[in-house]
């Protein structure tokens, strides 16, 4: 279990307990948090679960795979902290994680 803070582009914060083993994307979608669309349901096929990982957490969330990196390359408003949240698996180590959402996923 990890407490994750999802911050919408407009600033609204959602603090959610997410079960280990789920992805950061699933934690948002299953709790109906706006801002992460995840059209493909986590297949790394659509790049609509784009988030910015808080700087303090970038090391712990790891590096994107080549596939994820290629998808991100063409997402909107990409920054060095950009990740696809379907590719970040939640573990106890991510307790306290903060992610921010881009203005739009489409």
């Amino acid at each position, binding site marked *: 279990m990890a407490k994750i803070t999802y911050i919408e582009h407009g600033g609204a914060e959602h603090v959610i307990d997410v079960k280990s083993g789920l992805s950061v994307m*699933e934690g948002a*979608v*299953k*709790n*109906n948090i*706006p801002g992460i*669309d995840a*059209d*493909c*349901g986590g*297949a*790394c*096929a*659509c*790049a609509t679960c784009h988030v910015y990982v808080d700087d303090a957490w970038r090391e712990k969330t790891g590096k994107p795979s080549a*596939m994820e990196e*290629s*998808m991100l*390359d*063409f*997402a909107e408003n990409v920054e060095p902290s950009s990740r696809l949240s379907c590719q970040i698996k939640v573990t106890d180590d991510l307790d306290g994680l903060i992610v921010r959402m881009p203005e739009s996923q*489409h």
Partner: protein
Amino acid sequence: MGDKALGVVIIGAGHAGGTAAALLRQYNYEGPITMIGDEPIAPYQRPPLSKAWLKGEADADSLALKPQSFYADVAIDMFLSTRVMKIDRVAKTVSLSDGRQIAYDFLILAMGARARTLPIPGADLAGVLCLRSAADAESLKSALGPGKRLAVIGGGYIGLEAAASARVLGADAIVIEREPRILARVACQVLSDFFTDYHRARGVEFEVAAMVEGFKGKDGHVTGVRLGDGRTIACDVALVGVGAPPNDELAREAGLHCENGVVVDDHARTHDPAVFAIGDVAWRPMPRYERMFRLESVANALEQARQAASAITGRPVPPHEVTWNWSDQYDLKYQFAGMPFDADDIVVRGDPAAAKFAVFHLKGDVVEAVEAVNAPAEFMAGRQLIGQRRPISRVRLADMTVSMKEVAA
């Protein structure tokens, strides 16, 4: 909303219906929301049924769109294992199979499509399956395993994904296709050849240009597929994947304009301003291609769910999206975007033999569609180029030393 809101009634509790219900609440719709579905379970993702779920890599919980508690938490009333018998557009009510009547301010039709059945002898034998619902997938999965033999009728995505999953589960698989090549309706020759070779190398057999005349059975269970040339293909289980007509009967009976599905505008609204249709059941505008079409994909279901929920809550029409879809087979990630309706040529980028390539469909120098295998940059850039309708250099597009960023620049 005022106190007297009758609310939104959604017919169909699939990916489209479930998403529309959740979005209405996300967009702060305050009236009652009622969703009626004929399956016994809350909305779930169908794509994994022929992919990760069939291979045992995903469980029922991970398929669910939302946790069970979600619907009660946000006051979405759900009637499952329930059918809508009739829509009365004058009284603005729907009549349910349990005798209940529900009134609406807005009605969203999200009845989806159903697997086409074959009107041939033996089609009702046990072991002749289709793949549409979680229950279908359960039947198929329990019939597969080492030593079993699956015959797939129809070389489309569902059939190929099922064949790939069957091989992973240790079963034999043969794909029987009426056309001279698999994926004939949905992909180009390069892709057909590639997928044929990739599946063959993994033990899948093919019979193309083959008519299926019937199923043979013993003790009520399928034992083989009888072909037009007189041969019988032995099997323990047969999967029929030959397309999915829309469930638009209720709409037709209610006098709504239907073509191949319920006709809607770019807000997913029918000619009745109180009635919307979304997902597989909708015959919708495709502004990029200046025509109407029926799309069967999650991306389409979600785009139209956003359109309908936006219209009902007074939000602006969301921007049009370039249609896209994906398929997972073995270790292949196949992503495709756009439609090659008007394309006059193709450009292949990369090497099919290396299982990393993309086929771009062009009209002049404008990209109309892209089919990408293990080539996410080509898919993503292609999708953007399709939407922008900007001419590109074919020579640079075919040149792997020029990155997709540079091609699209």
